[in-house]
């Protein structure tokens, strides 16, 4: 039986307060990490659905919701490169969607392509390609935020859902599910022809070129072939580079990454302060007892061991309820915001490491008081 555990468990109420404090710090950290990862993950929800190996974008594009278009000609040049199987244009834009129920207008993200060259790897979209061949018919992302109206529910009830995008009349022809990102609260899919009508865009200028390589070929080497053939007014990215490019925008191009890192740091410091308070009170209260142990012939290192064991016991025990409550809060947030808040093993392991580190730092500050345990004082 370890002295550290006996000492901690003797005072049940103090132990509970300590565990609540650590759990609280862990929840703070978990929520910040959850939002941060949800942001990064949600920002590439569409990227991950794109059916391509190599992506062409304009060097002036910064993120998927802020694309600068480039000539479709570049895509046709790419198709001529050895190893390229096909290349399809993708058109993206934000437009105001009118909620058919309360008539309010909200910005929604439009994804458009030629229905003959489907580039979205979503069964629901693939099965509805015929529908969007009709002009002014779109597919609606039923995982979008609720403010766009109960489109999914109405459509499933068999009602004809008609509304306006950019003041142009459209009809919902089907549903799919991607979910909102921090850049866009909802998504719609349409054909390039419909897109041209609604957004009044020249189809000769595209936002993303989705390129597939021939089976069995390495997309990185094909990508470098393409780079050689194309002028510098187009950026050629492999699938992973494309995903990283988007995430990198959110991490470095905005203050969001900094804000979440700061939030995690705050949770960490709150944790250190709480654990330090508990441990230093523990040490101060037991100083005469520690001095007695020293008088009996225990070395300083034994007492250091006791305090650090207490720190580790506290961190592990506090982590358990902290993770449990965070798991619950993740579900709550996911249901409220549709953001992909996921409790992963790596995230939990990361927070456990942080918690242990947090408690060890507090322990290291608290043990300075141990020096005051002077065995000569106890007689």
């Amino acid at each position, binding site marked *: 039986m370890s002295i550290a555990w006996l000492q901690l468990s003797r005072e049940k109420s103090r132990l509970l307060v300590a565990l609540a404090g650590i759990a609280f710090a862990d929840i703070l950290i978990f929520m910040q990490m959850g939002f941060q990862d949800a942001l990064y993950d949600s920002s590439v929800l569409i990227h991950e659905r794109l059916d391509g190996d190599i992506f062409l974008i304009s060097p002036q594009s910064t993120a998927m919701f802020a694309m600068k278009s480039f000539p479709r000609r570049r895509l046709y040049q790419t198709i001529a490169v050895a190893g390229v199987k096909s290349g399809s244009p993708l058109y993206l834009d934000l437009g105001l969607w009118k909620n058919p129920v309360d008539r309010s207008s909200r910005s929604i993200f439009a994804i458009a392509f030629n229905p003959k060259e489907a580039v979205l790897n979503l069964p629901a979209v693939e099965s509805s390609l015929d529908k969007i061949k009709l002009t002014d018919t779109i597919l609606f992302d039923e995982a979008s935020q609720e403010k766009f109206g109960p489109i999914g529910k109405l459509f499933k009830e068999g009602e004809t859902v008609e509304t306006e995008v950019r003041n142009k009349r459209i009809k919902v022809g089907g549903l799919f599910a991607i979910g909102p990102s921090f850049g866009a609260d909802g998504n719609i899919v349409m054909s390039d022809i419909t897109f041209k009508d609604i957004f009044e865009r020249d189809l000769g200028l595209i936002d993303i070129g989705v390129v597939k390589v021939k089976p069995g070929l390495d997309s990185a080497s094909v990508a470098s072939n393409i780079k050689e053939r194309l002028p510098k007014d187009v950026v050629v990215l492999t699938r992973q580079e494309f995903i990283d490019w988007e995430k990198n925008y959110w991490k470095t191009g905005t203050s969001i990454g900094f804000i979440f890192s700061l939030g995690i740091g705050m949770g960490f410091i709150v944790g250190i302060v709480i654990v330090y308070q508990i441990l230093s009170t523990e040490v101060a209260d037991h100083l005469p007892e520690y001095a007695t142990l020293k008088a009996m012939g*225990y070395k300083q290192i034994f007492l250091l061991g006791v305090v650090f064991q207490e720190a580790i016991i506290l961190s592990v025990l506090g982590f358990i309820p902290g993770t449990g409550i965070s798991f619950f809060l993740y579900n709550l947030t996911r249901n409220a915001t549709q953001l992909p808040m996921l409790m992963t093993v790596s995230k939990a392991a990361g927070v456990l490491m942080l918690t242990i580190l947090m408690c060890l730092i507090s322990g290291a500050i608290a043990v300075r008081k141990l020096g005051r345990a002077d065995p000569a004082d106890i007689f």
Partner: protein
Amino acid sequence: MLEEPVVDLKNLNHYFGKGELKKQVLFDIDLELQRGEIVLMTGPSGSGKTTLLTLIGSLRSPQEGSLKIFGEELNGASKTMQVEVRRHIGYIFQAHNLLKFLTARQNVEMSLRLHKDIPGKEVTKKAVAMLEAVGLGTHINYYPDNLSGGQKQRVAIARALASHPKLVLADEPTAALDSKSGRDVVEIMQQLAQEQGCTILLVTHDNRILDIADRLIHMEDGRLVTNDTLVDTAPVMSTSNR
């Protein structure tokens, strides 16, 4: 005197403070304690008894003179040596100084665990036996908070004597006890010490227990002034007992 004394002090001086404020608290102490001897030390408060006890107990570093415990010179000894010596000394404090978060048995085990030669299984067995020896066989799983003053002091004695120390240092072990419990406590100490052949140095103000001593020493203003060897009967102490 064929055997080496357990405690051997020669010309021991000790000071508190530094520079201008330096004050001598022990003057020229010479003292030998033999194996199995029970020595009681009396003296008014502030006379330096506790300082002397902490020096002998290796809880304080000696400054001047010779301080040999179990034949080891402690003046100038390393920290490791000091700690090693402590493991062969049993301490009984005025306040029992038990670890509040441990039961009586666990408290006694703490002192046994310091001795690596005692196997883990033996530790509990010895602790229980020791508590039975001090008459607490029915209270081994009690926490100190649930024991009376006399019971706590008996646990402290069990803890001090469990690992068969060669020397027991006790500082007013009966001060917080009523006369009956105080008497019981010193008698247990005396009996166990005799069985184990250990030396006891006991600081006390308590006249009622002087008769257990083989020898009485008296301390006054940092000097040992009396060094009587008793012959069976307890003398009436007339020295100040402020």
